[in-house]
């Protein structure tokens, strides 16, 4: 009854083209933001932050990044883990080289460095397509991780080969290092996630995003109608890698605190992010959040049910999780190739007509 466009009169094109055209949606969006910023930081404890909310926000950023490349521009990438490693090691080098500069600038710069690396590995996409490209991005994955393991300069010649985030503060609050409080971690990630999601949403519905989608739907046809494939594909790689790099920087500096390239940014991370995008929905910002939430919550849930409830061993639960995730991927691709985002959209469509669907 309340979920309608009716009665909400738009008086300008700007109003008409906004992201949430329905009033209830808009309110819901503001309400979620208000709760996320004003309520959650005060009630959050370290279990919720470390097990659920912080990884959710970080993976959501990475998923948005991959979604821009795969969902919007149609270039499948299996190198996400490698690009996250670039972001992590870039922020580490910057943090240790310029301790006086605020960390936020470091994180953004790490994203920019990753964008450059991403463009470099995106160059072959001008010649290679489809799963040829997917396999070619594996080169980025394996090469980058190897590079960070083998060249001591990247981990500042530390004996363990690990990188450790030194303590940095924003406005006097520690955001990296062991003394960081749960709410500080959460707030940093939340700010980045919200700002980046807003940027992604507005990029993808503007002319840049339309070019990406034209390339995705058929690149030759797009070229003929005047989309330059060079700039479109490389910009997709750059923007996507920027997001992924920031996610990698946050994952290392804020969430993990210490990382080792092959362990934290291995090929499994690439697949995890890809699965988030598939389950959440290709070509949807909301889907990236939904997919990230799903795949962050699933292991926590399974662990709570199987290990805590039934008393099953943890390794068995981990294997069953593999099976469930794999089966879900296949299930989603068969039943709903557009993922959770599409299901959400269908629900809203039904709600719009409820209770008189005819």
């Amino acid at each position, binding site marked *: 009854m309340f979920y309608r466009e009716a009665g909400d009169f738009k008086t300008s094109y700007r109003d008409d083209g906004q992201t949430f055209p329905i009033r209830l949606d808009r309110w819901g969006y503001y309400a979620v933001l208000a709760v996320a910023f004003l309520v959650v930081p005060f009630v959050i404890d370290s279990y919720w932050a470390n097990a659920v909310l912080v990884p959710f926000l970080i993976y959501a950023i990475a998923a948005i990044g991959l979604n821009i490349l795969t969902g919007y521009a149609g270039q*499948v990438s299996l190198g996400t883990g490698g690009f996250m490693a670039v972001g992590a090691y870039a922020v580490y080098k910057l943090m240790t080289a310029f301790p006086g500069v605020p960390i936020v600038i470091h994180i953004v710069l790490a994203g920019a460095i990753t964008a450059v690396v991403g463009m470099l590995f995106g*160059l*072959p996409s001008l*010649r*290679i*397509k*489809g*799963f*040829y490209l*997917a*396999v*070619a991005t*594996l*080169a980025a*994955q*394996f*090469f980058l*991780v*190897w590079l960070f*393991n*083998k*060249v001591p300069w990247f981990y500042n010649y530390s004996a363990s080969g690990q990188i450790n985030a030194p303590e940095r503060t924003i406005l006097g609050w520690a955001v990296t290092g062991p003394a960081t409080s749960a709410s500080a971690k959460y707030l940093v990630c939340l700010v980045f996630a919200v700002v980046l999601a807003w940027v992604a949403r507005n990029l993808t519905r503007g002319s840049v995003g339309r070019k990406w989608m034209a390339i995705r739907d*058929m690149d*030759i*046809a797009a070229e*003929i109608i005047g989309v330059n494939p060079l700039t479109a594909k490389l910009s997709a790689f750059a923007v996507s890698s920027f997001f992924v790099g920031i996610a990698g920087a946050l994952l290392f500096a804020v969430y993990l605190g210490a990382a080792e390239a092959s362990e934290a940014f291995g*090929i499994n991370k690439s*697949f995890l992010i*890809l*699965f988030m995008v*598939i389950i959440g929905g290709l070509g949807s910002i909301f889907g990236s959040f939904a997919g990230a939430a799903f795949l962050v919550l699933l292991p926590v849930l399974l662990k709570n049910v199987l290990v805590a409830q*039934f*008393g*099953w*061993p943890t*390794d*068995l639960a981990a*294997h*069953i*999780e*593999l*099976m*469930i*995730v*794999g*089966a*879900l*991927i*296949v299930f989603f*691709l*068969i039943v709903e*190739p557009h993922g959770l985002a599409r299901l959400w959209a269908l629900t809203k469509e039904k709600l719009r007509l409820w209770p008189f669907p005819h």
Partner: protein
Amino acid sequence: MEFLYASEILLNGLMAGVMYALVALGFVLIYKASGVFNYAQGVMALFAAMTLVGIMEGRVPFAHLINAAFGVHVSSFGWTVPGLLAILLTALVMVGLAIVIEKLVLKHLVGQEPIILFMATIGLAWFLEGLGDVMWGADVKMLDVGLPQGISETVETATNNWLGYGFFIDRLDIWATVIAAALVAALVGFSQYTKQGRAMRAVADDHQAALSVGISLRFIWIMVWSIAGFVALVAGIMWGTKSGVQFSLSLIALKALPVLMLGGFTSIPGAIVGGLIIGMGEKLFEYFIGPMVGGATENWFAYVLALIFLVFRPQGLFGERIIERV
């Protein structure tokens, strides 16, 4: 002496290449017949090897799960199955797997874009990996079906007498080469001279035309996936005997992907040649360049080589020319 040492490495690289080619072969078969780029081929090899070990040692499938769910302690039936019989049983399991995959996955994805199918096989790979672990446990298993292993003295003495330097070649590698050659010959013979083989090639050529002359697409797909399962089994036996049955097997199998890109997705000889080039190239690169950059270049050399190569020739060495139309 330097030269002889390098050629020994080259030869060993060739042998490793045969192993890659074995996995790549399974990819090509499925790709040609159904247009599906089967990412799960590597995990299928792992799964086949696990099943083989499980059957040979008489392990109870899902023992871990049963123990956890019912609080009992079962682990083994208490018998052992001879190698050959176990291989046959495992082959049957792989056929069963092919049927299940066709019924549950492929049937529903007919006509989807190739990239969707590719991602579905990634999901399949995860599922199979989890299933293998739940069924047989995730421990590193030793696999011994009676293939000879260790240094081949015959080759060593022969080369020692001839060149004054004994080549070190693993007998398993020689066997793998022989078996791979036999497998390829059998596959070529099958696809050229039998009725089903001809039907398979027809399907590969054009799905609709094949359907219209009365070839059952679904039967052919089941057959092709079964054959690919069998090829995976052979590859799994070889790799499993060499380095134990463990998760890293599926990562080694991932290297079949650059092999394929190099050789072209649609060509069986391409898979072999690509395998040999990659196997050889990565060993030589590791030997000459590796020490300068810190070693372990085998992790990425194959991928980077394939990437650079593809930029110049997107269809691979032997692949069909890619023609694009609007």
